[in-house]
């Protein structure tokens, strides 16, 4: 409301007071004091409602004087003879001022409520925008724009924590574009942005003049800062999700590639093997071809497994498995290659079931690998011992042979990639990945694999896998 308009309202109400006094003067003889007081009170209330407390009080005091001067005998003096008239006058003044005061307060409260409602609406709209717009950067730009216009500062930007100084939200360039002529801002205000006790960034306000905020503006800024923090967090999370999705995509591609390579190599291997079988009757060399095909096939499998382990992309199918199931399957696998050597299998204890929580296929691959090694290096006359027992929280599988063992100091090297035991003839070599894969597979499912020298000569490999408890409730007796 402009100054001139205010002045006009004042003049209008003072004229109204004068008009009321003039009108009543015409019929003064027939008027009671109460009539005069009521009419003046109406004018005071009207003025208060129209232009606030100051006008209300002014009207009350003026009316008080006019009342005394014109309507209380002796007329045309400010003297009062009847003490009861004093009572009327004072009562009128107090009523007028109090009414003006009350009216003012009610109006002020209404105004505050309206402003609060507006603020809440704006915050709600911003909040919804922060959480729903396509890109978090756009929400941040919107928030900085609102802060700038609402608080009337020249610059407002969001800085991300732990980011290089040029990695800021678009909000900054947005602000700069809208205020290209802004004078160099010399006064700044920094508001830290928190999400769950973690600082995710800073809100920076800058203006040529000092930034002074009243409590209401401060509250507004804090609320917006909270939204800005959420916006920053959202931007970070969505960037993270994009990165993770890209990694997953790469993994899927790699897996598809591996599967396809595996298929493309194995189909011709099958053909070669079948052709070799066809000519085996005429040419004994066909047997060598078949053996080499088998070696190549293992080579492919080893390379695939190793690359999956390296990428940390080994698919796991963890289930409750019985130790004897694993031993049985392993013995079946190596059945054809024992070449006269015997494998003694034992469970300890033999009456209760030994169960663990592991991936059966991977565990089988480990045990078969250990048995194959033992069969390769152990002397024909000494049996290989395969045993399973419970060892604390683990199921312990041991494969023990009477072979040459591993030289002291080499115990860990045998688990490295592309490591062959000294003395292995070249044609007996695989990819040199067997034990590296075995240990990798054991660790992938929460287990361990290690080598120990065997008392009396030979090697012991200890495979530990997580044991499981059989709850009596889950099983029938």
């Amino acid at each position, binding site marked *: 409301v402009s100054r001139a308009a205010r002045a006009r309202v004042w003049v209008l109400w003072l004229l109204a007071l004068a008009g009321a006094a003039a009108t009543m003067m015409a019929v003064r003889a027939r008027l009671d004091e109460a009539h005069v007081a009521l009419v003046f009170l109406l004018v005071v209330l009207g003025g208060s409602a129209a232009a606030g407390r100051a006008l209300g009080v002014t009207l009350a005091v003026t009316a008080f004087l006019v009342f005394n001067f014109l309507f209380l005998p002796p007329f045309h003096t400010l003297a009062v003879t009847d003490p009861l008239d004093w009572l009327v006058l004072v009562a009128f003044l107090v009523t007028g001022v109090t009414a003006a005061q009350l009216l003012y307060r009610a109006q002020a409260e209404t105004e505050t409520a309206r402003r609060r409602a507006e603020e809440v609406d704006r915050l709600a709209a911003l909040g919804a925008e922060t959480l729903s717009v396509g890109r978090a950067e756009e929400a941040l730009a919107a928030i900085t724009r609102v802060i700038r216009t609402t608080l009337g500062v020249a610059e407002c930007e969001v800085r991300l924590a732990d980011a290089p100084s040029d990695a800021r939200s678009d909000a900054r360039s947005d602000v700069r574009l809208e205020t290209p002529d802004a004078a160099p801002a010399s006064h700044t205000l920094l508001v830290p942005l928190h999400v769950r006790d973690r600082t995710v960034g800073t809100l920076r306000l800058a203006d040529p003049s000092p930034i002074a905020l009243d409590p209401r503006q401060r509250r507004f800024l804090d609320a917006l800062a909270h939204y800005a923090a959420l916006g920053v967090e959202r931007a970070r999370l969505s960037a993270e999700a994009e990165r993770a999705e890209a990694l997953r995509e790469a993994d899927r591609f790699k897996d598809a590639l591996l599967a396809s390579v595996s298929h493309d190599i194995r189909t011709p291997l099958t053909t070669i093997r079948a052709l070799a079988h*066809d000519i085996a009757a005429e040419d004994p060399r066909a047997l060598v071809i078949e053996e080499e095909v088998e070696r190549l096939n293992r080579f492919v499998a080893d390379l695939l497994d190793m690359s999956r382990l390296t990428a940390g992309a080994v698919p796991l199918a963890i289930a409750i498995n019985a130790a004897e199931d694993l031993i049985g399957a392993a013995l079946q696998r190596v059945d054809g290659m024992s070449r006269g050597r015997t494998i003694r299998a034992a469970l300890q204890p033999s009456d209760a079931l030994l169960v663990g929580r592991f991936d059966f296929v991977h565990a089988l691959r480990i045990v078969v690998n250990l048995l194959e090694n033992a069969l390769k290096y152990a002397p024909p006359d000494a049996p290989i011992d395969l045993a399973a027992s419970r060892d604390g929280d683990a199921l312990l599988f041991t494969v023990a042979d009477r072979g040459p063992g591993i030289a002291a100091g080499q115990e860990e090297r045998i688990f490295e990639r592309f490591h062959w035991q000294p003395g292995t003839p070249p044609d007996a070599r695989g990819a040199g990945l067997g034990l590296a894969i075995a240990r990798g597979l054991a660790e992938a499912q929460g287990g361990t694999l290690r080598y120990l020298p065997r008392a009396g000569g030979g090697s012991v490999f200890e495979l530990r896998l997580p044991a499981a408890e059989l709850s009596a409730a889950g099983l029938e007796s």
Partner: protein
Amino acid sequence: VVRVLVIEDEPEMAALLARGLQAAGYDVDAAQNGIDAMGLALAEGYDLAVVDVMLPGMSGFELCRRLRESTPATSILLLTARDAVDDRVRGLDAGADDYLTKPFSTVELQARIRAQLRRARMGPVPGGDAPLVAGDVTIDLARRSVARHGEAVHLTPTEWGLLRALVMHAGRTLTHHQLFDAVWGRHHGDAQQYLRVYVANLRRKLEADSLRPALIVTEPGVGYRLELPEPAGADPR
């Protein structure tokens, strides 16, 4: 004469399979994709189909499912090449009777085919048929009785349910999933996680040496199979 359909898109492999099977005395047709295969299968009614898992267009799994639906009498042998056991499980769940992983030998292929044909000739195991005798174990589904060395063996209801499912599909690998469904139904709860434990218990009651099972065989990562008794000298596998 036994009629076999080979579905394989790689010509070398297809020719080789056809030649090997013809040499073994089978009547062989070949198709290069699933659509052609479905047409032939519906018109001719084969005893057995050898399906490669990687086919152009309709996948080997889809073909298995359709063959199983439209020509249930045809046995299906799936050729998988990927090293993931998932393919085998998917194949069996889709209706394949057995699978072979490349590279396989001709001997292995023919042994698997003979096993499938033998199983098909036996037909499904009906309740009223003669008891199944496998080694020293006799299983009588009609009487709900199991005996080893002529002595009755006591089984819990779950063990019996497992054995029954395996016997009904003797010679065929049942996936873990198929076993859950057969024993616990669709709404299996916590019990299913103990499937392998129940199998271990069953083996202890039925096998001569539970560390070297001869009756209930583990297919690692896939499931379990009740091994059919071999007719003397018929199967070199």
